[in-house]
């Protein structure tokens, strides 16, 4: 299901004094199986963009088409799409509402006309994927779990339909480092199985390690769309737009300032290590 965004614009509260232009004339296409990162300062339109891609809002102008078909709320029946596109919002744990973990995770399967054993199997798979033991957690109340566990249950509730496109808004914010690693590994596995992943994050290190392509938004305009390597090693660009740097970038920058420039800028920790080995040899 390739995603094709054409001339997309979106304005909040149009026609009132509170009118805010969130996106203007944005073009973007994402092919099957890509792992794309979206970065930009807060308020640059990232969240608006992914909500439009997910078909949760109607564009002010322009189109979003998925699999060659233009859709937006009101025009298309979302129920067929909701099984194919999974959306994980910021702090998704607030969406939990059922009295057991099993029921909450299976919520998205309610209209899928599956037998109860099939539903159980899918819930089992989803909980397993997020690292929760089905038998231990299925009858617990999701509201009584710890923060990290709640997050995982919420993620399982999105993964349970095995979406072909997974859209994530700051999925690792507020997770402890171990859960972050586990979650990113899970995304890698899903991506390896062919799931298209679009992820908003301020964590450039995570993006450097996991995404292949990075899209940069500023004030509702797409200012850069290139490989993650190209964007995240362009320290001048990152500084200019106040986007911060990866840890690896910071180290390489520091080395350069100490007159120890690396021959080519590394993107990941592994690359940095091998570059350092080369220099010291």
């Amino acid at each position, binding site marked *: 299901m390739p995603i094709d965004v054409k001339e997309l614009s979106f304005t909040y509260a149009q026609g009132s004094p509170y009118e805010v232009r969130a996106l203007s004339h944005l073009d973007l296409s994402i092919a099957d199986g890509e792992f794309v990162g979206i970065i930009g300062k807060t308020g640059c339109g990232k969240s608006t963009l992914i909500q439009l891609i997910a078909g*949760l809002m109607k564009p002010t102008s322009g189109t979003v088409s998925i699999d060659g078909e233009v859709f937006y*709320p009101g025009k298309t029946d979302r129920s067929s799409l909701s099984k194919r596109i999974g959306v994980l*919002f910021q702090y998704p744990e*607030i969406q939990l509402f059922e009295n057991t973990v099993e029921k909450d995770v299976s919520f998205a399967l309610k209209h899928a006309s599956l037998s109860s054993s099939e539903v159980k199997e899918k819930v089992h798979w989803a909980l397993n994927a997020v690292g929760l033991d089905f038998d231990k957690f299925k009858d617990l109340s999701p509201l009584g779990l710890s923060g990290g566990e709640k997050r995982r249950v919420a993620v399982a509730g999105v993964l349970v339909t095995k979406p072909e496109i997974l859209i994530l808004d700051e999925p690792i914010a507020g997770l402890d480092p171990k859960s972050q690693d586990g979650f990113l590994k899970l995304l890698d596995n899903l991506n390896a199985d062919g799931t298209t992943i679009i992820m908003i994050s301020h964590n450039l290190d995570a993006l450097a390690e996991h995404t292949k392509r990075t899209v940069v938004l500023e004030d509702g305009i797409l200012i850069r769309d290139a490989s993650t390597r190209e964007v995240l090693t362009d320290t001048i660009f990152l500084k200019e737009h106040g986007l911060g740097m990866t840890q690896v970038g910071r180290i390489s920058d520091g080395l350069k300032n100490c007159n120890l420039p690396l021959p080519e800028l590394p993107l990941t920790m592994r690359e940095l290590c091998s570059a350092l080995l080369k220099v010291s040899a």
Partner: protein
Amino acid sequence: MTQTLTGIYLPGNTFIHRLDARVKFFSFFALVIATLFTNSWGGYLVMGVISLVLIYVSKLRFSQAIGSLGMMKWFLVIIFLMNLMFFSPENAWFSWWFFTPSYAGFLQAINIVFRVSVVVILSNILNTSTPPIELTRAMEALLRPLSYLGLPTGQIAMIISVAIQFIPTLTMESDQIRKAQIARGARFESRKLTEKAAAIGPLVVPIFLSAFRRADELALAMEARGYRSSQKKQVNKNVKLSSADAFAIFASLVVCIFQIYFL
């Protein structure tokens, strides 16, 4: 956020915007009382013209002034029909089952719908021309006399202002929860009543939980910063009323008395 916004503060610098919030509150109540006493064609005309003038002076767009009437259209239709059908069993045009539409009922229906509409428009003008925080301050000032009767007016005002301040936050959060559940296949927009009813749980449970969580957090944060409910609140008494304020009080009182005694 995407729907047309009605009834929220729209910044401006008109005569109405510059009035003291307490004065606006007072005038609002005076005009509401005037509206409730309206019971003649002349009275309707006067109140209608006053509403139009106020809309014009506050530079409110007409669509915004009557926006909430559109949302209430079914309510208005129902109260119109109920008054028309049931108001007067005598002199009915005809009587069928228990419906007895009559001329008196027709007049009463117009009367009620007119009064409700004017009150809604007036409250729209008040809300769109006054920042919420000033509204709550005005409410507190107007409630203050009741503190002599032992009513905790400071706390009431605090409760109201906290409630008002959290509306945007909760609106945004509900919007996110709604979208998250739609993304998971909830059918809020379904035309089937059963599906609509089933969709309430996924929406209401998280919204309540997050409201309670926020309330807890806010209570802790207030306590951490030394809030004591018994503490005397600082009152800014020295806000002088302008001649425009005096005019507004005078004019609204005149309208009120005129409606009660003459129309």
